[in-house]
């Protein structure tokens, strides 16, 4: 495929260059003062080309919409995503007709009014009425879109519900870590100076809220139909947590906490059936340039029933169990990512803290 395309491109280039030189030779023979004056024939030809290319372009645009119809926007798997998709459709229904109307006029005028020596252009310099029309109509249309857009935005960005499940998404070059707030639904304090060994999130284990926090790597599980309130952190450069199926994106900025909340509505299982793709997985990807492996900074998201989710979360060790906290618990069951030494010095290391509460 590649070899073939390279050959095609190179051949095209060579042919093109040959033609270019040929044309140049020919035009050189004709050289006179007027050799490059635009002739009536040129005007006719170029006018016709505008029409030809214009129709080709509009056909191409229609073809593209048709071709990407099913590929372009994945089914929205969050509650607010359905609203923004609606807003997107409305916006498209405004701009697509505008695109076609203006392009058809442009192409038609260019084609119809090519220069003919016997004609004279119409002297038409100004019309208050026309100008008012195309100031007022866009204003009305845009005002509608603005009001619709802002009200959608305000709904999405309104504070999360009290009982929303709190999850921290922690970014660093080049991976993601999730932290569930546990029974108390409150994340323990953390600070970048506390990052040491297994405590990759720099959680302050002297904080009572930190003990029941649970950490997830590689896969992030979410219960379906339950609002999740995300707190985003980064420890090094700016990252961006992008979850296209949930119509969710928020930057992760070192030195501050950002947040976003949404309610997933379709489980991974359902989605696999709907898309006819047994391999389907929701993804979290990094969408702010962050370094050499930016293109592969990802995490799988699994949406499942609340029951399955609780089962999965119960299988996870708490931070207290992983790191050793105020109440160091005995490892109840062996766990894949629990081969970590307990760190009691994390509890005494808090004097140099620069902590913040999300």
């Amino acid at each position, binding site marked *: 495929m590649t070899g073939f395309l390279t050959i095609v491109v190179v051949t095209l280039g060579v042919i093109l260059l040959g033609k270019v030189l040929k044309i140049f030779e020919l035009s050189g023979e004709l050289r006179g003062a007027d050799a490059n004056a635009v002739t009536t024939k040129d005007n006719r030809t170029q006018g016709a080309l505008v029409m030809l290319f214009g129709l080709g372009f509009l056909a191409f645009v229609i073809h593209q919409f048709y071709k990407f119809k099913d590929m372009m926007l994945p089914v929205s798997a969050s509650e607010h995503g359905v609203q923004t998709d609606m807003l997107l459709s409305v916006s498209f229904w405004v701009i697509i007709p505008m695109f076609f109307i203006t392009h058809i006029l442009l192409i038609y005028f260019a084609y119809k009014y090519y220069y003919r020596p016997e004609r004279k252009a*119409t002297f038409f310099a100004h019309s208050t009425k026309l100008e008012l029309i195309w100031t007022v109509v866009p204003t009305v249309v845009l005002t509608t879109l603005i009001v619709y857009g802002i009200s959608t935005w305000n709904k999405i960005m309104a504070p999360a519900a009290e009982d929303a499940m709190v999850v921290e998404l922690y970014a660093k070059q080049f991976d993601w870590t999730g932290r569930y707030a546990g029974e108390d639904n409150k994340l323990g304090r953390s600070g970048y100076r506390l990052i040491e060994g297994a405590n990759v999130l720099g959680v302050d284990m002297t904080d009572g809220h930190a003990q029941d926090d649970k950490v997830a790597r590689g896969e992030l599980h979410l219960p379906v139909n339950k609002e999740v309130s995300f707190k985003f952190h980064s420890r090094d450069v700016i990252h961006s947590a992008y979850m296209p199926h949930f119509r969710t994106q928020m*930057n992760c900025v070192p030195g501050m906490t950002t947040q976003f909340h949404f309610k997933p509505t379709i489980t991974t299982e359902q989605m696999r059936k709907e898309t006819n793709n047994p391999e389907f997985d929701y993804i979290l990807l990094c969408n702010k340039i962050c370094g050499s492996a930016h293109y592969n900074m990802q995490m799988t998201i699994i949406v499942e029933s609340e029951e399955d989710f609780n089962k999965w979360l119960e299988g996870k060790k708490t931070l207290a169990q992983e790191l050793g906290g105020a109440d160091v618990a005995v490892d109840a069951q062996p766990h894949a990512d629990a081969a970590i030494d307990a760190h009691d010095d994390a509890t005494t290391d808090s004097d140099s803290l620069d902590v913040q509460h999300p």
Partner: protein
Amino acid sequence: MAEHHDNHHHHPHHEEGFLSKWVFSQDHKMISKQFLVTAIIMGVVGMLLSTMFRLQLGWPGQSFPILETILGKWAPDGVLDPNMYLALVTIHGTIIVFMVLTGGLSGTFANLLIPLQIGARDMASGFINMLSYWFFFLSSAVMFASLFVETGPASGGWTVYPPLSALPQAIPGSGLGMTLWLVSMSLFIVSSLLGGLNYIVTVINLRTKGMSMWRLPLTVWALLITAVLGVLSFPVLFSAALLLIFDRSLGTSFYLSEIHIGGQALENVGGSPILYEHLFWFLGHPEVYIILLPALGITSEVISTNSRKPIFGYKAMVGSILAIAFLSFIVWGHHMFVTGMNPFLGSVFTFTTLLVAIPSAVKVFNYLTTLWKGNIVFTPGTLFAIGLVSTFITGGLTGIILGDSALDINIHDTYFVVAHFHIVMGASAIFGMFAGVYHWFPKMYGRMMNKNLGYMHFWLTITSVYGVFFPMHFLGLAGIPRRYYSNTAFPLFDDFIDVNSMISVFAIIGAVAQVIFIFNFFYSIYKGNKATQNPWKSNTLEWTTPVEHIHGNWPGAIPEVQRWAYDYSRPDKDQDFVPQDVPLEPGEEAH
């Protein structure tokens, strides 16, 4: 440069030496040519960089021995290194945005057209004008040199957000490469300010008799407002760059806080990278219009002249330039909807951003009405101007989607954005620049460019522009992020592999098409047909100057302006144009 000038020393003032005529010239026409040639060279560099990373994007992981030949250790076995990929993307953006479409576009046409179209013998300060070019040249040279640094050129994206751009631990390009980027950008800002002040002062003070503001050609209006935008916004970028230099070199914490990198906790606390983003985009958004307005001004002039019709709604055109310029200062936040800004601010920026569509719509409809019932002469310049109207519509409309904060959440930083800005400001501005070059080449070099090569250049270019950028809208809607070295880490994006290959094929065709232009340009400087004084039968004053350049522009007195610039096809005249210096006939009313 053009040797044919050597034989002619019409100018009344004094004999110039080689250096003061060709190198350290203070003549605005020569400086304009210097800007243009430098911009063309930088444009070739920027385009080649994009062709290289398009090879990787079209055929990820494929070996292209040519890449190893060019890039050496950055493309082992012909496969582009991910860090170098980011560097190519970064320098491509920087060069095209600043060196080509800001310095190149404004530098060329403000210098050429402002004095000639307003009837001035030169810029207000020839010396400052010369400095402006040489700072631009130095800036371009430093940026080019940064490509050869051991640790690679700057690679944090053209917006160079800290902490990525501040910490060499984060990416190798943030070492010496980034230092050179900042040096180059500082020199560029100096150049831009020196040029901009000169343009403003010249337009305000040096207009010839009769040239009231309402008689200025739209090119001059556009270039004037562009200069004002630059003078107001570039200093803010300078402060952003300065603080970044402090953070990088002096240990300050303007943009850095609570960073743990390379196994080490840094001492910096209290700063915010978001501050940088605000400062950057306070320039960055007006910058879009610094790029676009001159192209729109050129288009107004070229479309009107070649439709043999007055530009429709002259005052509305000026009004919309002013409105766009004003709005451009209060929309920068739409680049930052997902930075965690206060949602109320998001609403405000959505509101102001979508308002930009109103003056833009006015411009489009006025262009269309100018073409309506015209008598259109299809010069290559006309075609590029019409192409601009098309790309301005296509790219402008998707701005209505991106400017809407609720929609931006999902498509921010995806290929949808890449499609949008490449079409609306990349392609439009470069089309405007090409239209200007084809249109004013006779004025610059006293010769004509070959029209057939021009036609071929246009058709291949617009085909490849849409072939490259239109499909990207759909990639973006599918959720493919920009600045990804490859999409192969996500099975979800496998459906788009072929599309990416096709895009790269179009990109290569587009690059090859520019060879036609470059050949035509340099060949015509020496061998083109001799131009007549007013080859396009245009009304504006620059065509009243002799074909051979002279210092001071007009051999005798500067012509007086008697009418506006758009008296084309007046029903009461036989000839279809009336130059601005032709006096009104008794009983004739000025427009």
